[in-house]
């Protein structure tokens, strides 16, 4: 089981962690939203919980709770730029279909 980040994502995560001034890495997760469908969580991680699974990719610590990992295994976190817009995307091999905007998905 693994979750990875691209070089571009790592660069931005490190930049923002530095700007924010604290945090050990990022926490990825999923949460159910609405009657069916999942939404991604992407947050700063300030401390490690006992049950967290930790991956190290491109020098970035990625923390995931085991429940979310079931949905995210094999995911690659990327950072993309479209015109003035920029932000993170999840390339999740488990996701069967996504809503039009890519904010929520189904297994």
């Amino acid at each position, binding site marked *: 089981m693994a979750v990875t980040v691209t070089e571009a994502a790592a660069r931005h995560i490190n930049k923002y962690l530095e700007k924010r001034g604290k945090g050990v890495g990022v926490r990825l997760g999923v949460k159910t939203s609405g*009657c069916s469908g999942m939404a991604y*969580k992407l*947050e700063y991680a300030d401390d490690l919980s006992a049950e967290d699974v930790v991956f190290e990719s491109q020098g970035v610590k990625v923390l995931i709770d085991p429940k979310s990992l079931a949905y995210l295994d094999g995911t690659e976190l990327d950072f*993309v730029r479209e015109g003035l*817009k920029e932000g993170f995307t999840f390339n999740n091999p488990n996701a069967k279909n996504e809503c039009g905007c890519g*904010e929520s998905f189904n297994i």
Partner: protein
Amino acid sequence: MVLLQLSEPGESPDPHQHRLAVGIDLGTTNSLVATLRHAVPECLPDVDGRVLLPSVVRYHRDASTAVGVDALAAQVADPRNTVASVKRLMGRGLADADAGMRARYDLVDAGGMVRINTVAGLRTPVEVSSEILQVLRQRAEDTLGGEVEGAVITVPAYFDDAQRQATKDAARLAGLNVLRLLNEPTAAAIAYGLDKSAEGIYAVFDLGGGTFDFSVLQLSRGVFEVKATSGDSALGGDDFDEALSNYLQEKARGADLDCGSARALLVEARRVKEALTSHDSVAAEVPMAADGTRQIMVTAEEFHHLTQPLIERTLQPVKKALRDAGLKPSDIQAVVLVGGATRMPHLRRAVEAFFGRPPFIDIDPDKVVAIGAAIQANVLVGNRQEGEDWLLLDVIPLSLGLETMGGLTEKVIPRNSTIPIAKAQDFTTFKDGQTAMAIHVVQGERELVQDCRSLARFELRGIPPMPAGGARIRVTFQVDADGLLSVSAREQTTGVEASIAVKPSYGLSDEEITQMLQAGYQHASTDMHLRALREQCVDAERLLEATRQALNEDAHLLNAAELAHVEQNMTALQALVQSADTAAIKAGVDALSAATGEFAARRMDQAIRKALTGNRVDNLPI
């Protein structure tokens, strides 16, 4: 596609729930827009990477406009129609417009308010400002990929009601919802987090391109009050450029400069001034009237000596403000520097010497006001609870949620949420004409209700009969500071409501909570598959129910063979629902959907025919 942002722990927004809020520094010389990206405040650049938008608007004959750098470039060629420093005219009548603005533009009095006569017609200062705000709003929306929900716009502390109202009007005209107008010095203090520091007295020293403002703020219980303001509306970084430019001209001993090279010299003086911030000496290229340029070395010391009188001039209003507030320099707990001109090292030294403490300089002085406004906007739009940083709160040990179709749990409040907390979610009916809904409140991390702890059950009755999915039932979970959970359900159209209160932690020991958590982790993978299966079953049931309903009403639209085909697919799906094969059920659902496609089309036709029969075309509600 939406690109995700990093959030603070526990603050990931729900999908489609991002509330975009911006802070705008609408300045005399330059304007900026800032927002929180990845939970960090940032000024947003344009496509060319420029953060500062020159506050200049040029009007063309065809009423089109250019804003920013392009307008600034046209200032020399088309001065009358290129409006700069419009902030000086906001909320002002012709009588109180300053002499400089009157000399530069064709100002007209219209109903007590000043208007600017341009090639595109009369324009109010409000309209000119709104052109600038529109560009910033567009920049924010292009960058963030959504509509801006609200904006905090900064104004000088000395702005009166008319000037503030004019600023609000400009924002509204630009399609911005103004959350609040914020005093510029207060915004700068917020950018440094001073609102979360100890109560006390702070000073903001703001030396911009053409104006100087000094403010004394008093912080009590997280709120800033402006104790005193003073300044000089004709003193700024430009005066330092001019002093240096005169000096260079003298040193070059050239003949009188023509208009064009005087401007070029001013631009060069500005470059030298900026370079002297980090260098001890800089070579200036002075344009000569005859031809070519002449190189003149300028040392930092020379520049400092040359501009010392200007520095002294900034300290006069500072002393006055302190005197007005009855304070000594040592009473000030921190001094914040704002404005590009405060980068000059000798100015910083003068401020430090006066107050006896080094000023705050960590945040870019050009951006600090916009950043403070962005932080405030983010709080006001509800993305962040004010005060959460220093309040120590309890957390919920296990997620709280309710049962949805198929025996699945829907978590409404996730575990580790700080209390007190309230969260609402909308649910709907599953069947046509459904008039009641059972609400089953559960606690735990597992996906299936049977694996979670049941806390309470209650029913919402009196839902008006509607097609399945038509009702909007808002279920609100609220946990108070004592950990007491109350759940209420309210049908939105009729307002019928039912509720219940429970104590979720009642009867649970720490070990039991730990056990429930661990079970959640151990069964993560099975739970995931079970959830997918149950969701597919719910889908299948919904389709079967709808088909049954349709056959009841309109079976006559199908011939015997077609009817048999539909029924055969229904029976097949019915059997599959009992199996535990998610993929097979999905295939069955797809097959039944395909088999009923033609049936659905005929029903639609029939419904339209019914609606049209006996109606004249002009009676139809179109």
